[in-house]
């Protein structure tokens, strides 16, 4: 018999298992019975905490999409030039996602399913990075240190680059990168990005 848990602990454990299964199979690929079976409880226990499968899926999406990385230290530590801060922020983001790669799967699932959550993933997880790039490049342009750069396109390029790193290493587990620490890959790609926008 499953160990009796307090309501909050039970809810958290349901959410953790649901997240794992939804990330693996998507909303339609997972039945409530399967989640209950994995937890060793009856489906009725699940319904005590979440009124429907949709509510459980929404809760799992919310938990993942609304997590925020903290970049306070990245911007307060000196030196705080654009390249150094971008490298620090990228490392923080990539390391945070690599600890919880279900995030990537859920983000992709929500986009494919046309869920509103896809926007939340961008707003809460990506926007810090893309806005930082756009804002900083605009500033550098105004100071005359960069020319002929469209900051919005540059941030899109950067986002695509980082997203691909995460897919290759955390989801696809591509053997081409097995011997490279994640932060090394990120640092090298940030260097390439800086070269591409002619940042010195």
């Amino acid at each position, binding site marked *: 018999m499953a160990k009796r848990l307090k309501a909050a602990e039970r809810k958290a454990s349901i959410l953790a298992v649901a997240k794992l299964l939804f990330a693996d199979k998507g909303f339609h690929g997972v039945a409530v019975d399967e989640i209950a079976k994995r937890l060793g409880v009856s489906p009725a226990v699940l319904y005590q905490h979440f009124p429907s499968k949709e509510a459980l899926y929404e809760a799992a999406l919310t938990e993942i999409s609304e997590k*925020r990385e*903290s*970049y*306070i*230290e*990245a*911007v*307060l530590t000196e030196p*705080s030039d654009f390249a150094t*801060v971008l490298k620090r*922020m990228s490392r923080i983001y990539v390391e945070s996602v690599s600890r919880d790669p279900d995030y990537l799967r859920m983000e992709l699932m929500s986009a494919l399913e046309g869920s509103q959550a896809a926007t939340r993933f961008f*707003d809460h997880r990506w*926007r*810090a990075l893309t*806005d*930082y790039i756009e*804002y900083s490049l605009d500033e550098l342009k105004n100071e005359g240190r960069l020319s002929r750069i469209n900051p919005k396109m540059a941030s899109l390029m950067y986002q695509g680059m980082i997203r691909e790193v995460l897919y290759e290493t955390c989801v696809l587990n591509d053997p081409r990168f097995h011997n490279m620490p994640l932060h090394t890959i990120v640092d090298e790609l940030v260097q390439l990005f800086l070269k591409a926008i002619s940042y010195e």
Partner: protein
Amino acid sequence: MTDYNQELDARGLNCPLPILRAKKSISQLASGEVLRIVATDPGSVKDFESFCSQTGHELLDSTEADGTFVFAIKKQ
């Protein structure tokens, strides 16, 4: 309302941009002067608390009304 020496409009900006701009603005103030910041990112409440605890500046005020967050920070 707390008196202030300079105001920073960080509405529409997401973390870490309000912090970055506050850092820049506060560097132009003299010790004891106050920076007022207006922001819309809900995460800015926690961010400015961390900002002050890490930099030693004093968070004099932190209020919210209709989705707008107002902070008053006294330079160390």
